[in-house]
């Protein structure tokens, strides 16, 4: 009996230790990326690094300005949101409030599948289909902000649809019935009552979508053109922070390598800000 108690206590401690795994991982990740960024950031200068417009790691003297990539990430993410959010939100509304049950049984697994397809497959599809399409219709090389935005817009659809649908479904049915009893049409009830009531969940889905788009790597690499300069139009090629790391890490050394890791750090900070925004939205919803 006593042995049992000791074992119980011991395993309690073991579980507690395993529970620290997330905390330990985040700390380890932060520490390693920060430590490896510091020398480069010190040499280049943080301000110069973030606002510099030229990225020429192999020139002499080399210059490391991340601004083109920061802008690149922001542009393609904004494009993805412009394309993915309206489409995804309307689809979520359909799934929650318009969809016949039989069609739902078909659509829901389809959208789950959309979430599961590897980014490399999306990237490849973008490369062999969307790039030539954009080239033929709009001219240019086809590798552009627009192409990347379309592809990312498709890729964030499941995130937007899933979370927004759940948020709309969570609105009490009594609101809907109340609106109908006043003579509102189905559409009016959904758009003037259910959507406003679900807005924090919908915003949360958009934030997660932004996170997904800004962090996406392989799909963007394959379609965006990857020129490290500040783009001037949506048919220009563009390079994101994520692509920059993938493309150059293979041959980078010394300061160049440090600068790439520091781009990872900047990306990480972007994601942390989005995470904080997301949890703020969630706690407000709970209150």
């Amino acid at each position, binding site marked *: 009996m006593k042995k049992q108690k000791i074992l119980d206590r011991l395993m309690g401690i073991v579980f507690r230790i395993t529970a620290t795994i997330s905390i330990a991982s985040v700390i380890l990740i932060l520490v390693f990326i920060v430590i490896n960024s510091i020398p480069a950031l010190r040499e280049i200068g943080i301000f110069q690094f973030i606002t510099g417009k030229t990225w020429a790691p192999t020139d002499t003297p080399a210059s490391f300005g991340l601004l083109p990539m920061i802008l690149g990430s922001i542009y393609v993410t904004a494009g993805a949101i412009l394309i993915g959010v309206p489409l995804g939100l309307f689809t979520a509304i359909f799934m929650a409030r318009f969809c016949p049950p039989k069609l739902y049984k078909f659509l829901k697994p389809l959208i789950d599948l959309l979430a599961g397809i590897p980014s490399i497959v999306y990237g490849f599809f973008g490369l062999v289909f969307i790039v030539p399409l954009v080239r033929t219709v709009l001219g240019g090389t086809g590798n552009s902000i627009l192409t990347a935005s379309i592809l990312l817009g498709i890729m964030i659809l499941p995130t937007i649809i899933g979370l927004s649908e759940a948020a709309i479904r969570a609105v*009490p049915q*009594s*609101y809907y*019935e*109340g*609106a*109908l*009893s*006043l*003579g*509102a*049409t189905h559409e*009016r009830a959904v758009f*003037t*009552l259910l959507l*406003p*009531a679900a807005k924090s969940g919908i915003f949360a889905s958009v934030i997660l979508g932004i996170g997904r788009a800004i962090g996406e790597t392989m799909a963007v690499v394959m379609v965006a053109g990857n020129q490290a300069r500040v783009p001037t139009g949506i048919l220009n090629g563009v390079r994101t922070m994520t692509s920059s790391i993938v493309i150059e890490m293979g041959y980078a050394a010394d300061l160049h390598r440090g600068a790439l890791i520091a781009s990872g750090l900047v990306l990480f900070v972007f994601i942390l800000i989005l995470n904080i925004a997301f949890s703020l939205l969630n706690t407000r919803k709970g209150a």
Partner: protein
Amino acid sequence: MADKYQIKDLDLFYGDFQALTDVNLNIEEKQITAFIGPSGCGKSTLLKTLNRMNDLVDGCRITGQVLLDGVDIYDNYDVNLLRKNVGMVFQKPNPFPMSIYDNIAYGPRTHGIRKKALLDDIVEESLRKAAIWDEVKDRLKRNALSVSGGQQQRICIARALAVEPEVLLMDEPTSALDPISTNKIEDLVLDLKKYYTIVIVTHNMQQATRISDATAFFLLGKIIEFDATSNLFSMPKDKRTEDYITGRFG
């Protein structure tokens, strides 16, 4: 007096289940008609056929006729117009998650009223009719969910009145409320009788005797007895009605 509703040979099914059988009923204008009966007897179901809220239930179908002012509301009738003319108050107060003002203005805005001054008038008049104006006039911009349950229910009544209905359907409107709030609502309903035809579902027989002019007693989807309230409660003609009102079942 004239009949507002005429219900003829109404049968209602949920899928294979028959919820209402052979209902024939006339509801008089500017009177209060009460539906009583044990739970599951079909009284709420019949109420919801009067403004076609049953349309929301999958697999619900009906045969027979429901005439409103002589026109069949199930035959090519604009259901939104119907619901504008037939207001409804629900069992649980269901104010929308917005300000008191916007709650009342929701209906009028739905039907195309945009002018601020006109909306202001409608909001005030509706709240006055629902006897809650004095309690909320200083906090019209406050969220409607922040007031008490009894006040919420009167806001819902005001919201229903704001679209100028002719009929008011009430589905056990006081069952979620305390006795004082219940009293206020009952007084209000009696007062509203001057302007509206009112149909009220209640499981509280005292309530039916206190406020209604006519009462229908339901059992297992059928109307067992329908009469002036005073008659039905003092000398019921059917044995089952007598059993129910003397508390022998239900």
